[in-house]
């Protein structure tokens, strides 16, 4: 893609947000904690004008349990995959380790979601993707970007079938459509930041937002229950 090209999503690569998901706790356990982290990420996205890629950094996370994975990852992806999503946001996990994988894969499977995770520097596709869809994602990843006709001829597919797979990647939010027939892999969108010499935005207010939503902050009482944290302040 040329520098002047415009993504259909409205320049999703123009905003790359880095968020340490261990902003409050190094161990991501319990639903209220997950909810607070998710609220902070959502607030960060809301405060960003236009589309964005949110890089969720797990490098400081010790443990993530199933409940917290559902609250942070699955609910976030579900919200921004839905047609009623509040804005155009894509998500990439970074700094994940093998022990984070099972809880996250479990909740992705439960809600039929896909996610790009960078493991040891290599982008991988997590979630319940059928083999052909996974192959399409791998292929797009190798190319970085491509049009569906190229994909069709390289894979020996009809143009309609190729377009259908690539559109499924887009609807699963693991690729970005550029115009009607061109597609960009999500890791490529993120990589463009260095290609174009733009600085990824480090969002300090994220921590502040997280602290405001923190379930156990400011001397919150013991014996509390989940309902107390349902409404963001």
């Amino acid at each position, binding site marked *: 893609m040329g520098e002047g090209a415009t993504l259909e999503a409205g320049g999703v690569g123009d905003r790359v947000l880095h968020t340490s998901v261990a902003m409050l*706790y190094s*161990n991501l*356990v*319990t*639903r*209220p*904690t997950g909810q607070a982290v998710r609220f902070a990420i959502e607030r960060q996205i809301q405060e960003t004008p236009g589309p964005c890629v949110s890089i969720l950094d797990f490098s400081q996370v*010790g*443990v*993530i*349990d*199933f*409940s917290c994975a*559902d*609250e942070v990852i*699955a*609910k976030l992806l579900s919200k921004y995959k839905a047609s009623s999503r509040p804005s155009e946001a894509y998500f990439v996990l970074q700094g994940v380790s*093998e*022990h984070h994988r*099972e*809880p996250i894969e*479990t*909740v992705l499977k*439960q*809600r039929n979601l896909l996610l790009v995770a960078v493991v040891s520097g290599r982008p991988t596709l997590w979630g319940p993707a059928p083999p052909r869809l996974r192959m399409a994602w791998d292929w797009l990843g190798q190319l970085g970007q491509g049009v569906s006709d190229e994909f069709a001829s390289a894979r020996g597919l009809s143009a309609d079938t190729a377009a259908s797979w690539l559109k499924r990647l887009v609807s699963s939010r693991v690729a970005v459509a550029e115009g009607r027939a061109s597609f960009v892999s999500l890791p490529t969108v993120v990589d463009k930041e260095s290609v174009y010499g733009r600085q990824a935005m480090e969002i300090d207010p994220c921590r502040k937002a997280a602290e405001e939503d923190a*379930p*156990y902050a400011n001397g*919150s*009482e*013991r*014996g*509390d*229950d*989940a309902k107390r944290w349902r409404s963001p302040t």
Partner: protein
Amino acid sequence: MTFVLPVPETLDERGFETLVSGWNDAQGNKLLLDARHVHWVSPYGILGLLAVGEASLDRSGERPLLQIPESREVTSYLSRIGFYEVAHEIFDFQERVRKRSSGESDALLEITPIQSHQDVHDVVDRVRDRSAAILGKRLGYPPPAVLHFSVILSEVCQNIVEHAGADGWVAAQAYNWKQRLGRQVVVIAVMDVGMGFRGSLAREHAQQYGDRWSDETALEAAFLHGVSRYRDPGRGQGLQGIRKQVSRWDGLFTIRSGTAQIAEVPEWIDKMAIAGSLPDFPGSQIQIVMPQIVPTSGGERSAGGRGNG
């Protein structure tokens, strides 16, 4: 009238069943739990004693009396695992409460009340170093097991906060399970005397089961099928995740609730996968047993092998 309930000499899972049976016989009478002759306790047994006390208090409104064990070894262990700090909230003692010594306990996790999500965080934070030492050095588990162990602890403790409608406790201990397995194990026990699985799931799921709705079917629904009382599709994954992980470790995972018990059963123990018609008892009582991994003759590492009893 005071009903005297002798606490079994061996206070483990079987001892707890005896205790529960006696608790049912006591009905609404004031209870005196006579633990003087107890000579061995497991984490499950000791939490069971607390649970029976709490259930008695709930039922009669009166604190049950407790006669503590005469065995120095047992009382010392109870002190180290933090039994008395919790017990004084539930029982009336005939003897002075023995405070925990200031030194480090040898328990993986002392008896810890679970009342809130913050308690779950505290438990996960607290066990990290000890579980690394015990699981890694004593039981031969690979380093990631420490993290999986923390996830298990988190999920079983959250079960109390999210579903029980009452407070509960957790404890974990490594010891030599000589009689049953002939090797070391780590045992996690988690208990509450809240609404139990049947009570928790009833509103959303009882109707579809009709006459078949029971403690057994409620446990099956949650344990085998990941059913939750919440309609949210992301719920119910915790227990499923624990089952998978414990199974990989060739461990035992049991949940008792009401009149039933369900289990993920490894080969090394003879146990029913599901049992009904047990003496009724409120809440949920969970036990996870993780056996020591031993190298096999082929150099592989295995936790399996049938025990001797």
